[in-house]
């Protein structure tokens, strides 16, 4: 790891002030993407600003129908939260399937979203569940948050504060892990609210995306025959040594079908 200066912020505004005072600053949340990247010398911030001491940034609360998860909530905390399990068990299941138990003790939802790894799980949850990202300065809808691989619409100094998950009628998350990294080779969040189907897919493309054709078909008729003829065009999907684009497209459909089965039974 290269040298850097370390700063602890005890509130959001101090964090932003610190950020704007330096050349190449970085916020650190759980650090479970940033530290490995820095260890491999692929990232070299001049200053690292620690968000861990900001009070209540990891709180999980229910406000009416909305589940509010603090950005610094760890995957383990989300997975174990009875509020999360009660509000949306698919979200708890998703959190329980991220990385491994040691990683889940440290990695955070906010860090994962800000990083927007194309194979991360949380982007599928946020997009599939139609969540809102509340930052230190505004609220961003899931549909406009994820921009491209490792890119979001966050300003460089902007900090995610909470993620608001609305109530959905039904949700299921299905993941086909990369056997080596255990990240999602394909991950599908399928939800239904008032008959409207919503599907977010991670791992398959440069960034999480919604499967519009499947959503449309399933909103019209939530059944397997309804999507029989629907396919995901492979052209825009990732291809690597672990899976071709064609195979990823196929897996997406398999997982969607399994999701439909799960929500129909």
């Amino acid at each position, binding site marked *: 790891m290269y040298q850097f200066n370390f700063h602890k912020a005890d509130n959001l505004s101090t964090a932003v002030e610190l950020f704007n005072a330096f050349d190449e600053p970085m916020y650190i949340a759980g650090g479970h993407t940033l530290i490995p990247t820095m260890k491999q010398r692929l990232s070299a911030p001049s200053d690292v600003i620690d968000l861990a001491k900001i009070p209540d940034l990891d709180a999980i609360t229910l406000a009416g129908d909305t589940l509010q998860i603090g950005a610094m909530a760890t995957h383990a905390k989300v997975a174990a939260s009875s509020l999360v399990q009660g509000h949306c068990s698919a979200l708890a299941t998703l959190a329980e399937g991220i990385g491994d138990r040691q990683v889940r003790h440290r990695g955070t939802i906010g860090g994962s979203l800000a990083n927007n790894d194309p194979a991360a799980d949380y982007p599928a949850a946020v997009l599939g569940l139609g969540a809102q990202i509340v930052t230190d300065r505004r609220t961003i809808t899931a549909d406009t948050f994820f921009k491209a691989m490792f890119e979001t619409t966050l300003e460089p100094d902007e900090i995610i504060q909470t993620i608001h998950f609305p109530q959905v009628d039904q949700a299921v998350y299905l993941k086909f892990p990369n056997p080596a*990294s255990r990240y999602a080779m394909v991950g599908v969040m399928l939800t239904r609210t008032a008959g409207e189907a919503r599907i977010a897919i991670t791992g398959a493309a440069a960034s999480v995306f919604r499967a519009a054709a499947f959503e449309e078909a399933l909103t019209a008729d939530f059944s397997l025959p309804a999507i029989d003829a629907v396919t995901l065009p492979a052209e825009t999907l990732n291809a690597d*040594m672990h899976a071709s684009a064609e*195979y990823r497209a196929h*897996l997406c459909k*398999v997982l969607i079908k399994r999701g439909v089965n799960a929500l129909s039974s």
Partner: protein
Amino acid sequence: MSGSLIGKSVLRKEDHRFVSGKGRYTDDIQLVGLTYAAFVRSPYARADIKSFDVSDALAAPGVIAVLTGEEVAKDGLGGLPCGWMIHSKDGSEMRQPHHPVLAADRVNYLGEPVALVIADTQLEAKNAAELVMVDFEPLTAVVNPATASQAETLYEAVPNNLCYEWELGDEAATEAGLAAAAHVTTLKLTNNRLIPNAIEPRAALAEYNSGTDEIILHTTSQNPHLVRLIMTAFVQIAPEHKLRVIAPDVGGGFGSKIFIYSEETALAWAAKKLGLTIKWTADRSESFLTDAHGRDHVSEAQLALSADGEFLALKVKTVANMGAYLSTFASAVPTYLYGTLLAGQYRTPAIYVEVDSVFTNTAPVDAYRGAGRPEATYLVERIVEKAAAEMGLDPAELRRRNFIGRDQFPYQTPVALEYDTGDYEASLHKALKMADYNTFSARQAEAEARGKLRGIGLSCYIEACGLAPSQVAGALGAGVGLWESGEVRVNPTGSVTVLTGSHSHGQGHETTFAQLVADRLGLPIEDVEVVHGDTGKLDFGLGTYGSRSLAVGGSALSVAADKVVEKGRKIAAHLLRTDVDNIDFDAPVFKMIDSNESKTFQEIAFAAYVNHDYPSEELEPGLAEKAFYDPLNFTYPAGTHICEVEIDPDTGVVEIIQFVAVDDFGTIINPMIVEGQVHGGLAQGIGQALLEQAVYDDTGQLITGSYMDYCMPRADNFPDFKVGMTCTPCTHNPVGAKGCGEAGAIGSPPAVMNAITQALGGIEIDMPATSEKVWRAVQTMPALKTA
């Protein structure tokens, strides 16, 4: 008391230090005045080095020195040699390109070291390594072994990139067998390239004492004496008596720590040159790039059968990838550890094998758990299973028809080996029973009803272990004899220190060898301490690989213990004023045959060192005996592995439903340890079949350079394995042991792949059977079973 410890699952003596964090691995060692090294490595698979500029690095904070390949050349260091000479068909010697400790003018694989930086801290060394400016001029790399002999020549002295073109067996007889066959089964396959991945990365710590001119090198080695021999006799960094090599606790090897690498050699050289104490520990990414890889064969085979399924001939053509340089034992792996095993457990009368070994711009390839024998077993057991399917025979029955019978030993195969003993039918029978083989079709039907494809696959493997009878090894080109040494040193109070030239890096020698010696001498196991891994403590040893430790190293200790008993009888005779012939050793007591008088082992031990009245011409004081045991033959562990898989046709995911391994390792000292060795081998073999592969792109960049892409087996990849044993003791060593370290990795890959092939209705895929490959195969099945 004799016999009381053999065959007992004694808990391991070494474990307390490991479970309490008190193991002492190379990187754990802290010394006063320690400095740290970082290596500068080639970012290209092949490039010319135009120049080095080390000025910025030398000026960086904490930097003590920067040494490049130019200094290595200036100091006249020898290259890293390969210890096994192979001759081509035409009688010519294999071609061995110079393997420099640090490259000076040309790099030949990604990650090849070209310089090392030494600094006060590890961080400073790594920072400065980035400042060493090397002007590389990239060249086109040769990566694919299958086409390497037609590609651009990498070394002037190696036409067509061919290290050797080797053959074994009777070509004419084999062709005749093929011509006479009622059926010929053909098979093409690749044996996927693997990266060993011992969890402890390689490390070295070299200290130099200018007062004594001695270098002490701590290093992660499976054979420290060989490290010393090569560094002194070939690389010539110091005289042999001025280099002490210590391999302390070593965190796994699997072959990869047999070899003598650039890094520890450069460290020992630099320590002396600069008068420093220097440590280097590999990052995992360095391990991926530079630990010797394994396997990497491309093969074609034809098996000739008579109408009733009798094997008539086997013909094999293999291309083996050596990587960029010949690693320490690389040349022997695809030849004498491979071609000689192609008879398998069968009476195949004619076998002919050709192996072309090629150089490519990839990391050197050498022995990895099994080394040649997994490649042979994979080929033989895949083609036998395929022949059974083609001829409509039960694969177990076809094997039975061709087994070497238990009454046919010793059995001379057509590929040089003479098997001493075995009972292949016994292992097959037991394995079939344990696997409920007869009721498989019901399970298959039940799976089909659930929309799943189920398959069962057999593998009846054999291996040649206990490397090696020195005369045979020498005749086949080995540069060293492959005996082993041991010493049983009885202390005056009657406790025993056992020294062995074998090395334990997980195998549990401290327990098994203590059991062996304690049993022979009738002592409590607590009184026996095993010492290994230090050239300063033991004269010479050849280390641990090829499942040789117990069969060869244990035999040496057995002989040494016998010598201790003989000496003890003489001492007892002297003390009891009688003839040696009148003394019997009934462990642990030396008894007079014709009276009730006796001496305990402890009394003899004490007397050996403190008595003043020995007749000095007949009896020396002391009670410590050495033995150098040279085996008479290889040992031949063999067995049957059966795998049952279920495939999800929708995704191509393969699940191991059950895995049965029945092995014949001869006499077993500690069943708990042996079963553990089998489990570990199975995980690596199943890992090869389903998960693991090293992938280079066309330019020689390693795609699988971390655990993000190289799929390491985890706990949730496996079910519990069912392990069973049969036993025909080895006929020619005093322990009766055959070796158990590699069997799991040798027997399991074909069992897994045969099961998958069966589930896929005969469609063949190469290892690893990734879900995508399996899914694509399912798409081509006649009756597509996707939901």
